[in-house]
Each structure stands twice: as C-alpha cells, then as structure tokens.
C-alpha cells in the first residue's frame, strides 16, 4: 500500500462519497488509487469550483466536503474557494498534490508554497513529509474541519509521499490533540443568567446566524422560540433557520436586510445573538446592539464574542447543546405586546417597489419561484444584486438557502448547487445568479452534463454588473466604470451548445407558466430572465 492508497482508505473510513477536483502530475497517484474505490470523482472545470462544490455538499450533508487538486496553479486556483468556505465556516478537507520532497523550496515546475499561501484562510494545514503520518493527519483533518467552529483544512502531499510504501496502515479511532479542545456545552451558570434575563425582559429577540445551521440547531431554536413566543431575526448566513413565513420570524438584519428587522433588533431590551459574527454587513453600528440592552452572545468560537461588540453575557458553546439546555429550563415570559409591535412594523415598514412593467421584476419573480419550489428545496444564491433580491424575497420553507455570505464570491452558485445536488439527489436544487456571476462559472455546465447533475439555473440578465452599477449610480453620481457586460454570449445558443434546455422570460406576463415548466422539467434547465438594467436593490 502506498501513500495515495492510504489517503483513499482514510476517505473511505470517513464515509466520503464524492471527491471534486482536477488532476495534474502531482496528484496523479491519488487519482490512480481512487479508481479502486467506490468514491465518486467529479471532474470540475476549474479548481476554485471544486472547493465551492465540496462546500455545497458539506452544507447539505453536514460532513466535510472533499476536493483534490494538483500542485502549483491547481493549488493556488483553489484558494478563493477555500477562503469562501473559511469565511462562512464550512467544513472542507482539501488535498493538494505537491512536487517531490527533494524539490521543495527550489522553485520547481508547478511548485507553490500552498500551506504558506493559504494560511489565513484555513483552520489548519499540513505538509505531509512522512507517508506514515497520513492516517493520523487525515483523521485529525476531518476532526478539525467538522468540530468547534468548522472550516477548511488543507493537506499538501508531495508526489513521492503519495508513492512511498506505508509500513502499517491503521486508521486511528481517536484524535489526540493537546492544543485543540472546542467547548461544546455552555456554562451552566451563564445559561441560568440568560434565562433570568429572559424572565425580566419585555422585548427579547433572537438573532440567528449561520452557526445555528452549522450545528444543526434550527429545530431546537424554532421550538424554543415557539414555546416562549420569542421573535427571531436572522443574518444572511442564518437564512433558513426559520421558515420565511413563520409568524415569529421578522426577516434578515443588516444594511441589505429588512428595515423592520433592524428596528426590531435595535429596539429590543434583550438580544440573543447566536452563531453570528456581528460583522459589518449585518451590524453596521455595533453600539446600537449593546446600548441600553442586554446582549447575550452565543458562539462556539470564543474569539467571536467581544470581537465586534461587547457582550453582557458571553456564552461559549455549540448552539445545539446550548438550545437543548435552554429547552430544559422553564420560565414565564410575556412578550405579547412586543410581538404586536413587531407585527405592526412588519406591515408598516415593508418596502414598496415600483417595478418597470417592461421587464421581469426580480423581486416578484424570486418570490413566485421560491413559493413554487418544493418544501425541502435548496436555493443557492450567487453574489451581486441577485443575492440581495434572493435574500430579501426568496421564501424558505423546510429547505436550505445557500450563499457566499462572508466572502461574497461571485460564481459560487452553480458549483455549490452541483455539490448540493450530489449530496441530495432527491432534492430540488435551484441556482440563482446574475449574468456576471453566471459567466464566472459557466464552464461548469460541462461538469453538470458530464456527471448528470441536475441543477436548475436562473440567470437574471441585465447586461451589466448591477451591484457595482448601483453603487456607482449613488456614490459616483452615475459615473459608470467597468460595468458594461457587452459581449456576453447568447444564453440560448450557449445552452444548446451544452445540450441543456433553455427558456427565456421577457416580462411578467407568462411568469407562472414558465416557472411551472422550469420546475417540472426533469433534468437541468437554464431560465434567463430579462430584468431592468436600472433596477436597484436599496
């Protein structure tokens, strides 16, 4: 057995079903050994998307997604995907081939110091120098990626290490790391304090972040909120924690969120922030969420607490463990009046749009589309104006809403949707992107076709980079620069070239009919919606 065989054995022991990647000489031993395994390999068309696809899979399966690429450019190309996963705390194990150990540091052909380059975007990284280290490194990598605050782990394996004979293969049963012991259970005293404050509070609110989904605590949170009638808002990464139409849900916060959600958060007297990093896009003025109120900050990563806002009650631990403990406590709270106020805000502060009837209104379209999607469907939003419309108008029921929240990586939606579909072939998966973000990963249409991954793609077409255009419109007084997307391909012809069925929607007239055909179609389909180039999200 050689090192590459050992890596595959480890992947099998971890229950890995799929590996996304792109070969090159330095990773060839790995892709040679994988032929002896039942693990499915998906040949992505550019390495960045291997990480996005693995990330899409991870967010559906709850297990680390795996990608494997070659050294040098293969490794550097994957960095953006890794950084995207890191920003959203998505567990990944990324294996990179590396030049021969003897050539390390010599600027050999296709050599890149990937462990050095990726340091600020990984939870941990390894450069394997001894083949006998492979089993424990693989075990550690999966454990690190998927525990505590989740995130990507990179393993760089020189080609000679992949080819070297391993003395004795034994996959360790346990991980022994003296430097890493994430706190899962919340401190009992702090939990009691939170319950006491909830008893005293008149206007409590829970703000749910992506951490809730990562710890699979959404059911516990919903149950707790329901039981005590506590209103809930969410960050962008927390979309889907509450079904959009839940009576206790008051929308997404942040500068692109609902005005009533921000108001609810600011006016509350007790804010329970859970699994959210309180970053600038969600909370532009941290003062507002600390002044005159009790801030309870729950996070599995102690460094998140107090990073951007000082918490009154810090509570370190896993969201699921903590909400399970909350559920065991009994207390009486009466927030009926507060809920009435919030319901009033929800109606009176709802934004009114004035859509141009000559085009498809993205807001109405997204809301109709998501309403018609299956109960447990996966909605993958890209980045740009499309992301903001998706966040604002997509209706999530029991399904998932995926997007690149922290990094805002354009081109995320198609590869992530592929990974999601591969993780859950029985679920409906729809990627929604703009014509800019679509062109950043349209090469993956080939991957979809080759590997029979049925992803439904919506392209909101406005022939421009809308988010930047809108920014320039207001910040630079309509002084537009670099936003014209002329030269883009005719999507009908492009779809035909890939043998993917295509539809185009020009205005609202036939919207329902077109969406119905689109969703009912078995297999992939691209639906292009022509939207007003001057439409704005704000």
């Amino acid at each position: 057995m050689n090192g590459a065989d050992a890596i595959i054995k480890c992947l099998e022991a971890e229950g890995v079903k799929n590996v996304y990647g792109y070969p090159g000489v330095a990773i060839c031993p790995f892709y040679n050994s994988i032929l002896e395994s039942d693990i499915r390999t998906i040949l992505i068309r550019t390495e960045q998307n291997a990480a996005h696809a693995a990330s899409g899979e991870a967010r559906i399966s709850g297990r680390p997604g795996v990608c494997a690429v070659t050294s040098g450019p293969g490794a550097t190309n994957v960095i953006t995907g890794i950084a995207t996963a890191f920003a959203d705390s998505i567990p990944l194990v990324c294996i990179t081939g590396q030049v021969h150990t003897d050539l390390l540091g010599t600027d050999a052909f296709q050599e890149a110091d990937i462990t050095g380059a990726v340091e600020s975007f990984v939870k941990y990284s390894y450069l394997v120098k001894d083949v006998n280290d492979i089993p424990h490194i693989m075990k550690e990598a999966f454990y690190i990626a998927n525990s505590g605050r989740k995130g990507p782990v990179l393993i760089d394996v020189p080609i000679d290490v992949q080819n070297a004979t391993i003395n004795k293969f034994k996959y360790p049963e346990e991980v022994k790391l003296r430097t890493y012991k994430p706190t899962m259970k919340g401190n009992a005293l702090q939990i009691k304090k939170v319950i006491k404050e909830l008893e005293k509070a008149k206007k409590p609110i829970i703000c749910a972040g992506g951490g809730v989904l990562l710890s699979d605590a959404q059911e516990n949170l919903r149950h707790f909120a329901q039981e005590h009638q506590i209103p809930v808002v969410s960050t962008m990464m927390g979309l889907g924690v509450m079904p959009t139409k839940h009576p206790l849900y008051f929308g997404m916060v942040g500068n692109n969120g609902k005005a009533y959600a921000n108001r609810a958060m600011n006016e509350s007297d007790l804010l329970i922030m859970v699994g959210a990093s309180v970053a600038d896009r969600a909370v532009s003025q941290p003062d507002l969420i600390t002044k005159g109120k009790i801030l309870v900050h729950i996070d599995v990563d102690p460094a998140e607490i107090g990073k951007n806002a000082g918490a009154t009650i810090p509570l370190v631990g896993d969201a699921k463990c903590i909400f399970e403990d909350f559920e065991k406590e009994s207390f009486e709270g009466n927030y009926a009046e507060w809920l009435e106020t919030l319901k009033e805000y929800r109606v009176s502060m709802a934004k009114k749009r004035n859509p141009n009837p000559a085009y498809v209104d993205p807001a109405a379209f997204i809301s109709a589309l998501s309403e018609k999607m299956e109960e447990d469907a996966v909605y993958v939003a890209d980045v740009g104006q499309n992301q903001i419309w998706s966040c604002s108008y997509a209706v999530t029921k029991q399904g998932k809403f995926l997007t690149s929240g922290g990094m805002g990586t354009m081109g995320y939606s198609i590869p992530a949707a592929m990974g999601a579909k591969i993780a859950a072939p029985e679920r409906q998966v729809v990627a929604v992107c703009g014509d800019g973000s679509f062109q950043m990963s349209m090469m993956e249409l080939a991957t979809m076709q080759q590997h029979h991954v049925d992803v439904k793609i919506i392209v909101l077409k406005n022939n421009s980079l809308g988010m930047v255009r809108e920014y320039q419109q207001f910040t630079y007084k309509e002084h537009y620069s670099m936003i014209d997307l002329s030269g883009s391909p005719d999507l009908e012809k492009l779809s035909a070239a890939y043998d993917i069925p295509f539809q185009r929607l020009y205005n609202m007239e036939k919207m329902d009919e077109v969406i119905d055909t689109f969703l009912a179609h078995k297999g992939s389909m691209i639906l292009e919606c022509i939207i007003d180039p001057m439409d704005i999200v704000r």
Partner: protein
Amino acid sequence: MKKRIYSVLVENRSGVLGKVAGLFSRRCYNIDSLVVGETDDPDVSCMTIVSSGDERTIEQIEKQLNKKLDVIKVKTFSESRCIARELMLVKVKYNSHNRREIMEICELMNVQIVDMSKHFMMLQLCDTPEKIKLLLNLLNSISIVEVARTGTLALSKCMEND
C-alpha cells in the same frame, strides 16, 4: 494603549513562528518584540511577545492566539506582574574625551565591556526593558555604532500556587 506580555507555549514545529507572526500582521496587531526559544521540553517552544493596544485588542490577541492549533497555552501579564529581561549589545566609538564618561555609565548601570579595540568598545547589558532604554538614552550623546537587542523575555512572578 496598554502594553501586554504574552507568553505563548507552542508546538516546536517548522512553520509555527510564521503562523503566529502572520496572525499579528493580518489582524493589524502590534509586535513590540518577539522572542522564541525551546523550553525544557524539546517538543515545546516558548514565544514571548510584547504587544500593545486597547482593551479589546489585547483580549482579541489572546483569543486569536488560543485559536491557533499549534498553540498549547497562552499566558498574559502586565509588566508589573512578571520578571522581564532583555539583553543588549552596543558597539560605541570612543576617544580620550569620552572614555571616562562611558566607563562611569558602565559602572553605574552594571554594564559589562565585552570587547574592545583601539577606537571601539562593545557593551553588554542584561536588565529590565526600562534599564535598556535608559542606557540607550545615556549612550545617545556618545556615538553608537551598532545595537543588537534580544527583545523582552518574561516569566510571571513566583507564586506559591504556581
């Protein structure tokens, strides 16, 4: 701005210094000085880092250091709660007019003269960071040729519950 000393026990592996130093630059934390050396356990190194910042930054530095998987333990203390030492070597140019003055400073401050030639002498001082600073100030009026400093090393004071 508060000054803080971090005594960081780390795994003695290649690349760890880069990871810790990278954390400081990436997150815009100051490094006033950084000293690394092996401990009594050859698998463990001790980094002594002196940094400064506001209350929140100082707390974040400790938390972010603790997040690093190669970090075993972080101890943090202010200068008053530890014994801090720094070693400095200074090369000065001397002549018949200032020789006496240099010798007097050396005597008063417990500075050793470790090397000498016709026009140059090398001074050595191992003392608290304040004394090091003081000596540099005193020597400033005399011509300093070169200075090398180790940066601050520190251990928390001996306590019975240590």
